[in-house]
Protein backbone atom coordinates (compact mmCIF):
# COMPACT_ATOMS: atom_id res chain seq x y z
CA UNK A 1 0.00 0.00 0.00
CA UNK A 2 1.36 3.41 -1.00
CA UNK A 3 -0.60 5.57 1.42
CA UNK A 4 -1.33 4.93 5.05
CA UNK A 5 -4.15 6.77 6.82
CA UNK A 6 -4.70 6.54 10.56
CA UNK A 7 -8.06 6.76 12.27
CA UNK A 8 -7.64 6.58 16.09
CA UNK A 9 -11.11 6.19 17.57
CA UNK A 10 -13.13 3.80 19.70
CA UNK A 11 -16.07 2.02 18.09
CA UNK A 12 -18.89 4.44 18.87
CA UNK A 13 -21.86 5.23 16.60
CA UNK A 14 -20.83 8.84 15.99
CA UNK A 15 -17.34 7.83 14.87
CA UNK A 16 -18.79 6.39 11.63
CA UNK A 17 -16.53 3.36 11.25
CA UNK A 18 -19.32 1.73 9.23
CA UNK A 19 -18.57 4.05 6.29
CA UNK A 20 -15.25 2.30 5.85
CA UNK A 21 -17.06 -0.94 5.12
CA UNK A 22 -19.07 0.47 2.22
CA UNK A 23 -18.05 -1.50 -0.90
CA UNK A 24 -17.55 1.65 -2.94
CA UNK A 25 -15.09 3.12 -0.45
CA UNK A 26 -13.31 -0.20 0.01
CA UNK A 27 -12.89 -0.46 -3.76
CA UNK A 28 -11.62 3.10 -3.92
CA UNK A 29 -9.06 2.45 -1.20
CA UNK A 30 -7.86 -0.75 -2.84
CA UNK A 31 -7.58 0.72 -6.34
CA UNK A 32 -5.64 3.72 -5.03
CA UNK A 33 -3.37 1.72 -2.75
CA UNK A 34 -4.63 3.39 0.42
CA UNK A 35 -4.66 1.61 3.74
CA UNK A 36 -6.72 2.83 6.70
CA UNK A 37 -5.52 1.73 10.12
CA UNK A 38 -8.07 1.57 12.90
CA UNK A 39 -7.69 1.28 16.67
CA UNK A 40 -10.49 -1.23 17.15
CA UNK A 41 -10.46 -5.03 17.31
CA UNK A 42 -11.17 -7.11 14.20
CA UNK A 43 -14.24 -8.71 15.74
CA UNK A 44 -15.71 -5.24 16.39
CA UNK A 45 -15.64 -4.35 12.71
CA UNK A 46 -18.42 -6.84 11.86
CA UNK A 47 -16.86 -7.53 8.48
CA UNK A 48 -13.84 -9.34 7.21
CA UNK A 49 -10.84 -7.00 7.39
CA UNK A 50 -9.15 -6.39 4.06
CA UNK A 51 -5.76 -5.04 3.15
CA UNK A 52 -7.39 -1.63 2.75
CA UNK A 53 -8.85 -1.49 6.27
CA UNK A 54 -6.88 -3.07 9.07
CA UNK A 55 -7.68 -3.26 12.77
CA UNK A 56 -4.79 -2.83 15.19
CA UNK A 57 -6.85 -3.10 18.37
CA UNK A 58 -6.92 -0.45 21.09
CA UNK A 59 -3.57 1.34 21.38
CA UNK A 60 -2.18 3.48 24.16
CA UNK A 61 -1.54 7.16 23.57
CA UNK A 62 2.18 6.83 22.86
CA UNK A 63 1.58 4.11 20.27
CA UNK A 64 -1.11 6.25 18.65
CA UNK A 65 1.31 9.15 18.33
CA UNK A 66 4.01 6.87 16.90
CA UNK A 67 1.58 5.42 14.36
CA UNK A 68 0.34 8.87 13.41
CA UNK A 69 3.90 9.95 12.72
CA UNK A 70 4.45 7.08 10.30
CA UNK A 71 1.10 7.66 8.56
CA UNK A 72 0.56 9.92 5.57
CA UNK A 73 -2.55 11.59 7.01
CA UNK A 74 -5.13 11.50 9.75
CA UNK A 75 -8.59 10.37 8.70
CA UNK A 76 -11.24 11.55 11.15
CA UNK A 77 -14.85 10.59 10.49
CA UNK A 78 -16.40 11.62 13.82
CA UNK A 79 -19.68 13.56 13.67
CA UNK A 80 -19.09 15.41 16.93
CA UNK A 81 -16.32 15.96 19.47
CA UNK A 82 -15.79 18.16 22.48
CA UNK A 83 -12.21 18.71 21.36
CA UNK A 84 -10.95 16.18 18.84
CA UNK A 85 -7.54 15.46 20.38
CA UNK A 86 -6.28 13.54 17.30
CA UNK A 87 -6.69 16.72 15.23
CA UNK A 88 -4.32 18.58 17.53
CA UNK A 89 -1.90 15.67 17.51
CA UNK A 90 -2.00 15.47 13.72
CA UNK A 91 -1.26 19.17 13.38
CA UNK A 92 1.58 18.88 15.88
CA UNK A 93 2.95 15.93 13.90
CA UNK A 94 2.48 18.02 10.71
CA UNK A 95 0.17 15.51 9.10
CA UNK A 96 -2.73 16.42 6.81
CA UNK A 97 -6.20 15.91 8.26
CA UNK A 98 -9.10 14.52 6.24
CA UNK A 99 -12.26 15.26 8.16
CA UNK A 100 -15.83 16.52 8.06
CA UNK A 101 -16.29 20.25 7.74
CA UNK A 102 -17.79 20.57 11.22
CA UNK A 103 -17.50 23.23 13.97
CA UNK A 104 -15.09 21.24 16.16
CA UNK A 105 -12.71 20.93 13.22
CA UNK A 106 -13.10 24.53 12.08
CA UNK A 107 -12.46 25.89 15.57
CA UNK A 108 -9.14 24.10 15.91
CA UNK A 109 -7.89 24.17 12.34
CA UNK A 110 -9.63 27.18 10.79
CA UNK A 111 -9.46 27.57 7.03
CA UNK A 112 -5.96 26.23 6.82
CA UNK A 113 -5.25 24.37 3.57
CA UNK A 114 -3.24 22.03 5.75
CA UNK A 115 -6.25 19.73 5.82
CA UNK A 116 -8.89 18.56 3.42
CA UNK A 117 -12.51 18.70 4.38
CA UNK A 118 -15.50 17.01 2.91
CA UNK A 119 -18.81 18.64 3.39
CA UNK A 120 -21.55 16.07 3.49
CA UNK A 121 -22.13 12.60 4.82
CA UNK A 122 -21.77 9.40 2.84
CA UNK A 123 -19.01 7.73 0.90
CA UNK A 124 -18.79 9.88 -2.25
CA UNK A 125 -17.51 13.02 -0.49
CA UNK A 126 -14.91 10.93 1.32
CA UNK A 127 -13.70 9.53 -2.00
CA UNK A 128 -13.46 13.00 -3.52
CA UNK A 129 -11.60 14.31 -0.44
CA UNK A 130 -9.18 11.40 -0.74
CA UNK A 131 -8.69 12.18 -4.44
CA UNK A 132 -7.84 15.77 -3.51
CA UNK A 133 -5.42 14.47 -0.90
CA UNK A 134 -3.74 12.18 -3.45
CA UNK A 135 -3.50 14.95 -6.05
CA UNK A 136 -2.50 17.81 -3.76
CA UNK A 137 -0.21 16.05 -1.30
CA UNK A 138 -0.49 19.03 1.07
CA UNK A 139 2.82 20.14 2.46
CA UNK A 140 3.38 20.55 6.19
CA UNK A 141 3.04 24.13 7.38
CA UNK A 142 4.64 25.95 10.23
CA UNK A 143 1.42 27.54 11.49
CA UNK A 144 -0.34 25.19 13.82
CA UNK A 145 -3.65 25.55 15.56
CA UNK A 146 -6.05 28.45 15.13
CA UNK A 147 -6.41 28.71 18.90
CA UNK A 148 -3.49 29.01 21.28
CA UNK A 149 -2.99 26.21 23.75
CA UNK A 150 -2.26 27.25 27.32
CA UNK A 151 0.13 25.50 29.72
CA UNK A 152 -1.65 23.21 32.17
CA UNK A 153 -0.29 25.23 35.10
CA UNK A 154 -2.05 28.36 33.80
CA UNK A 155 -5.30 26.51 33.25
CA UNK A 156 -5.18 24.95 36.73
CA UNK A 157 -4.71 28.40 38.31
CA UNK A 158 -7.63 29.74 36.31
CA UNK A 159 -9.76 26.80 37.42
CA UNK A 160 -9.10 27.55 41.07
CA UNK A 161 -9.57 31.28 40.62
CA UNK A 162 -12.90 30.70 38.92
CA UNK A 163 -14.46 28.81 41.86
Amino acid at each position, binding site marked *: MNYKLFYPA*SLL*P*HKNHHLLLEPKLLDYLTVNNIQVRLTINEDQLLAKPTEAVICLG*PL*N*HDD*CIALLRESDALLFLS*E*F*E*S*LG*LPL*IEAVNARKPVISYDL*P*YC*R*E*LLGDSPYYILYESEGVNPICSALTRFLLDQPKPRQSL*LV*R*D*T*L*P*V*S*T*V*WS*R*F*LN*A*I
Partner: protein
Amino acid sequence: MDLLWAAGVNGEGSSVVTFSFVEFLISSEDVSDVCIVYTSESTLSAKIALAEACNAGNHSSRNIRLVRLPKLCRLYPIHLLVKYFFPVSLWFRRCVVFDDFPFRLCPRQLLYFHQPNLIFGSTILWKLKRLAFMMLKTKRLTISFQTFHIRDSYVRVFGNCKSLCLLHQV
Protein backbone atom coordinates in the same frame (compact mmCIF):
# COMPACT_ATOMS: atom_id res chain seq x y z
CA MET B 1 -7.72 21.12 50.74
CA ASP B 2 -8.84 21.04 47.07
CA LEU B 3 -10.23 17.98 45.37
CA LEU B 4 -9.51 16.76 41.84
CA TRP B 5 -12.14 14.11 41.16
CA ALA B 6 -11.47 11.78 38.22
CA ALA B 7 -13.01 8.53 39.47
CA GLY B 8 -15.05 7.99 36.31
CA VAL B 9 -12.25 8.74 33.85
CA ASN B 10 -11.24 5.66 31.86
CA GLY B 11 -11.27 6.35 28.10
CA GLU B 12 -7.94 6.85 26.32
CA GLY B 13 -8.67 10.43 25.20
CA SER B 14 -10.15 11.64 28.48
CA SER B 15 -7.34 9.93 30.41
CA VAL B 16 -4.72 11.76 28.35
CA VAL B 17 -6.38 15.10 29.05
CA THR B 18 -6.98 14.42 32.76
CA PHE B 19 -3.53 12.97 33.23
CA SER B 20 -1.92 16.17 31.98
CA PHE B 21 -3.41 17.86 35.08
CA VAL B 22 -2.57 15.01 37.46
CA GLU B 23 1.00 14.91 36.20
CA PHE B 24 1.30 18.66 36.67
CA LEU B 25 -0.02 18.45 40.24
CA ILE B 26 2.27 15.56 41.17
CA SER B 27 5.39 17.11 39.71
CA SER B 28 4.87 20.83 40.39
CA GLU B 29 6.61 22.24 43.45
CA ASP B 30 4.14 25.13 43.54
CA VAL B 31 1.07 23.02 44.18
CA SER B 32 0.05 21.64 47.56
CA ASP B 33 -3.02 20.56 49.46
CA VAL B 34 -4.77 18.64 46.71
CA CYS B 35 -6.51 15.29 46.91
CA ILE B 36 -6.64 13.39 43.59
CA VAL B 37 -9.30 10.68 43.36
CA TYR B 38 -9.29 8.04 40.60
CA THR B 39 -10.24 4.38 40.23
CA SER B 40 -8.14 1.24 39.96
CA GLU B 41 -7.74 -0.74 36.73
CA SER B 42 -8.41 2.31 34.60
CA THR B 43 -6.34 3.85 31.82
CA LEU B 44 -5.81 6.86 34.06
CA SER B 45 -4.69 4.64 36.94
CA ALA B 46 -1.95 3.08 34.80
CA LYS B 47 -0.66 6.52 33.80
CA ILE B 48 -0.70 7.75 37.42
CA ALA B 49 1.17 4.65 38.63
CA LEU B 50 3.93 5.42 36.14
CA ALA B 51 4.09 9.11 37.09
CA GLU B 52 4.15 8.20 40.77
CA ALA B 53 7.05 5.82 40.22
CA CYS B 54 8.99 8.63 38.50
CA ASN B 55 8.23 11.13 41.28
CA ALA B 56 8.41 8.63 44.15
CA GLY B 57 7.87 10.47 47.43
CA ASN B 58 8.36 13.92 45.88
CA HIS B 59 4.79 14.95 46.46
CA SER B 60 4.27 13.59 49.97
CA SER B 61 5.80 16.67 51.62
CA ARG B 62 3.48 18.95 49.63
CA ASN B 63 0.34 17.20 50.81
CA ILE B 64 -0.73 15.80 47.43
CA ARG B 65 -2.89 12.82 48.32
CA LEU B 66 -3.63 10.13 45.76
CA VAL B 67 -6.79 8.16 46.54
CA ARG B 68 -7.52 5.11 44.41
CA LEU B 69 -11.10 3.84 44.66
CA PRO B 70 -12.22 0.36 43.54
CA LYS B 71 -13.19 0.10 39.89
CA LEU B 72 -16.78 -0.55 41.00
CA CYS B 73 -17.08 3.22 41.50
CA ARG B 74 -16.96 3.70 37.73
CA LEU B 75 -20.33 1.97 37.34
CA TYR B 76 -22.82 4.66 36.45
CA PRO B 77 -25.42 3.91 39.15
CA ILE B 78 -22.77 4.05 41.89
CA HIS B 79 -21.04 6.99 40.26
CA LEU B 80 -24.30 8.96 40.15
CA LEU B 81 -25.26 8.07 43.72
CA VAL B 82 -21.90 9.40 44.90
CA LYS B 83 -22.41 12.58 42.88
CA TYR B 84 -25.90 13.04 44.29
CA PHE B 85 -25.28 12.41 47.98
CA PHE B 86 -21.57 12.93 48.79
CA PRO B 87 -21.18 16.19 50.76
CA VAL B 88 -17.88 17.33 49.23
CA SER B 89 -17.83 20.70 51.00
CA LEU B 90 -17.54 19.03 54.43
CA TRP B 91 -13.97 17.98 53.62
CA PHE B 92 -12.84 20.08 50.70
CA ARG B 93 -12.65 23.80 50.03
CA ARG B 94 -12.97 23.56 46.25
CA CYS B 95 -13.46 20.79 43.74
CA VAL B 96 -12.53 20.21 40.09
CA VAL B 97 -14.42 17.34 38.45
CA PHE B 98 -13.14 15.54 35.35
CA ASP B 99 -15.70 12.77 34.93
CA ASP B 100 -18.76 14.30 33.28
CA PHE B 101 -21.15 14.69 36.23
CA PRO B 102 -20.88 17.40 38.89
CA PHE B 103 -21.45 16.91 42.63
CA ARG B 104 -24.85 18.16 43.68
CA LEU B 105 -23.62 19.15 47.15
CA CYS B 106 -20.57 21.24 46.35
CA PRO B 107 -20.98 24.99 45.98
CA ARG B 108 -17.39 25.77 44.90
CA GLN B 109 -16.97 23.45 42.00
CA LEU B 110 -15.64 23.45 38.44
CA LEU B 111 -16.66 20.76 35.97
CA TYR B 112 -14.26 20.02 33.12
CA PHE B 113 -16.69 19.21 30.33
CA HIS B 114 -15.37 16.73 27.78
CA GLN B 115 -18.27 14.40 27.07
CA PRO B 116 -20.02 15.52 23.86
CA ASN B 117 -22.52 12.64 24.09
CA LEU B 118 -24.17 14.47 27.00
CA ILE B 119 -25.15 17.08 24.41
CA PHE B 120 -25.42 15.12 21.17
CA GLY B 121 -26.06 11.52 22.32
CA SER B 122 -29.39 10.31 20.97
CA THR B 123 -29.74 6.85 22.54
CA ILE B 124 -32.03 6.20 25.52
CA LEU B 125 -28.98 5.70 27.73
CA TRP B 126 -27.56 9.12 26.86
CA LYS B 127 -30.97 10.73 27.31
CA LEU B 128 -31.10 9.26 30.83
CA LYS B 129 -27.57 10.49 31.53
CA ARG B 130 -28.60 13.93 30.29
CA LEU B 131 -31.50 13.85 32.75
CA ALA B 132 -29.11 12.84 35.56
CA PHE B 133 -26.80 15.69 34.57
CA MET B 134 -29.69 18.16 34.79
CA MET B 135 -30.50 16.91 38.30
CA LEU B 136 -26.91 17.32 39.45
CA LYS B 137 -25.98 20.70 38.00
CA THR B 138 -26.58 23.71 40.18
CA LYS B 139 -26.58 27.43 39.46
CA ARG B 140 -23.25 27.86 41.25
CA LEU B 141 -21.47 25.31 39.08
CA THR B 142 -18.69 26.64 36.85
CA ILE B 143 -17.98 24.69 33.69
CA SER B 144 -14.76 24.64 31.70
CA PHE B 145 -15.08 23.89 27.99
CA GLN B 146 -12.27 23.13 25.60
CA THR B 147 -13.88 24.77 22.58
CA PHE B 148 -16.39 27.54 21.92
CA HIS B 149 -18.55 25.33 19.73
CA ILE B 150 -19.10 22.84 22.56
CA ARG B 151 -19.90 25.69 24.97
CA ASP B 152 -22.51 27.06 22.58
CA SER B 153 -24.00 23.59 22.08
CA TYR B 154 -24.11 23.11 25.86
CA VAL B 155 -25.98 26.38 26.34
CA ARG B 156 -28.52 25.36 23.70
CA VAL B 157 -29.26 22.10 25.55
CA PHE B 158 -28.78 22.93 29.23
CA GLY B 159 -29.12 26.71 29.35
CA ASN B 160 -26.67 29.38 30.47
CA CYS B 161 -23.95 28.66 32.99
CA LYS B 162 -20.85 30.21 34.48
CA SER B 163 -18.10 29.11 32.15
CA LEU B 164 -14.50 29.24 31.00
CA CYS B 165 -13.28 28.25 27.58
CA LEU B 166 -9.65 27.16 27.71
CA LEU B 167 -7.68 25.01 25.34
CA HIS B 168 -4.63 23.61 27.06
CA GLN B 169 -1.55 21.60 26.18
CA VAL B 170 -1.58 17.85 26.64
